[in-house]
């Protein structure tokens, strides 16, 4: 700490410390702690606060177990987010491999630049684009009916399918980049050696490329899962009342149910889910936190 004052002098050093303290304490840590505290308290009227009823309780957490609709949506959100993550991995792996192993250098940089373009665009707009594509009278239905794959248009925007397609689209890049970074450092000689020894294409990927790409796979999966589980925009735009997401339930507790304590408990459950997923991935792929944020 004294190094800071030696380097920048005390007035400037103090200003920096205060700014950082404001960020860390007031913007990041205290709000999280209060949210957790809030989630263990009953929803009280203002004049009941601090009174005999203001005690720590697990009631808000029991609600999730007791309410089968909410619990069902919670489980659905986990399963669907995991499916989105897996789907994104499968869709992105060939591209990342192509970029990092087959193209390399300036060619890869050029293609990457093209891939990045959609991701500069507002997530809401990208999702809206899918809203148009998937609409009942939209182009996808028109094409599918014209080619004869469908007899009549399908309601894509009525279920979880549309939401999942939109999510894969929205979070692709968070998978491509970590995969690319991991595969890029793969030694060509390793793959060639495997091929010379008679390994098939599938075996090379399973035994050489994928093990090498483990940190990238872990990072990409963590990012996509968290974005998917925590997404509010995509289900709100591409979903229907039949395909509600857990974040929408949380939102309703705050702005329709008016029970912030209950909402805080659900939010904390979502946070625990994400933290749990991170640790599960780190254990499965045997990577450290340092390797993840690299």
């Amino acid at each position, binding site marked *: 700490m004294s190094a800071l004052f030696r380097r920048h002098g005390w007035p400037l050093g103090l200003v920096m410390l205060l700014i950082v303290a404001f960020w860390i304490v007031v913007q990041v840590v205290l709000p999280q702690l209060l949210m957790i505290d809030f989630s263990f308290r009953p929803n009280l009227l203002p004049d009941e606060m601090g009174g005999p009823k203001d005690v720590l309780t697990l009631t808000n957490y029991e609600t999730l177990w007791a309410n089968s609709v909410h619990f069902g949506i919670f489980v659905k959100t986990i399963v669907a987010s995991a499916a989105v993550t897996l789907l994104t991995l499968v869709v992105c792996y060939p591209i990342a491999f192509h970029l990092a192993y087959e193209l390399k250098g300036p060619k890869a940089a050029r293609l990457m630049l093209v891939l990045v373009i959609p991701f500069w665009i507002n997530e809401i707009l990208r999702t809206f*684009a899918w809203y148009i594509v998937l609409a009942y009278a939209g182009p996808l239905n028109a094409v599918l009916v014209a080619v004869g794959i469908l007899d009549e248009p399908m309601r894509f925007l009525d279920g979880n399918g549309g939401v999942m397609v939109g999510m894969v*689209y929205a979070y692709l890049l968070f998978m491509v980049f970590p995969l690319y970074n991991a595969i890029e450092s793969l030694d060509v000689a390793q793959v060639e050696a495997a091929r010379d020894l008679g390994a098939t294409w599938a075996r090379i990927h399973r035994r050489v490329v994928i093990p090498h790409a483990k940190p990238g796979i872990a990072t990409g999966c963590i990012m996509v899962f968290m974005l998917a589980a925590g997404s*509010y925009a995509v289900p*709100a735009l591409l979903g229907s009342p039949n395909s509600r997401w857990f974040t929408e339930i949380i939102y309703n507790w705050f702005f329709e149910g008016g029970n912030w304590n209950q909402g805080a408990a659900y939010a904390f459950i*979502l946070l625990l889910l994400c933290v749990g997923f991170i640790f599960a991935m780190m254990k499965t792929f045997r990577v450290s936190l340092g390797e993840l944020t690299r």
Partner: protein
Amino acid sequence: MNGAKTSPLMRAYLVLFLSYLFLPLVIMGAATFNDSRFPTVTPWVAFTTKWFDALFADGKMWDALVSSLMIGAGVVLLAVPTGIAAALVLQSVHKKARTLLYGVMVSPLLTPGVIIGISTLIFWRERFGVGGGPLLTVIAQASFISGYVMLMIAARLERFDRTLEEAALDLGATQGKVFRRITLPYLAPSLIAAAFLAFLQSFENYNTTMFVRGTDTTLTVYIASKVRTGVTPAVNALGLILIGLTILGAVVYELRRRKTSPV
């Protein structure tokens, strides 16, 4: 050097993948010019530019734009100084403390946006009686955008030659002057890039904003609400304009980045 030949299968996949990326955006853009009450390209009714007029005549859209610009400016003003201070403080603490501090600083980047919005909302209402609105939106957005800024500044600081500062000090410059004349100018390119990214992040934020906005409507919230309640191709016109501006910004950003970093 090429690692391997590209197989026809990979080529086909690449084409498919790129269509997946760009076709929806093209369709959205094309729907702007279709004379249909609902944004679509099927059926194609007739070419029109009337949706631009409809957009420009929409007072609520302009209000939302102003709100987005002000919140974006607020986030830049808060997050950029925070990011600079954080990166410099991080450099001057001991190794153990650094790991912990770094962990806390990047944690908002790994937290779902809705949770950042919720915790900010609860904290400010309970402790200070401040409800949702533009101020809270700036505070909530900056709490994670500062993390991005910190990472960008820290990356540039890593290559900074500290002896420059020491030489200036030896030659009699005050510490304040060293910061103003040496450290800050060195950081300038990443500061501009960070400010641009911070603004863009704020502008397009939805998940966090939904919880802290109160009755304030940003442009992104406005677009989403339009899609949910009675969408017309005027939204496409807005989208097309935003896409144009974003790509322009991205190209300028990329060109600047290539000029300033030798790698």
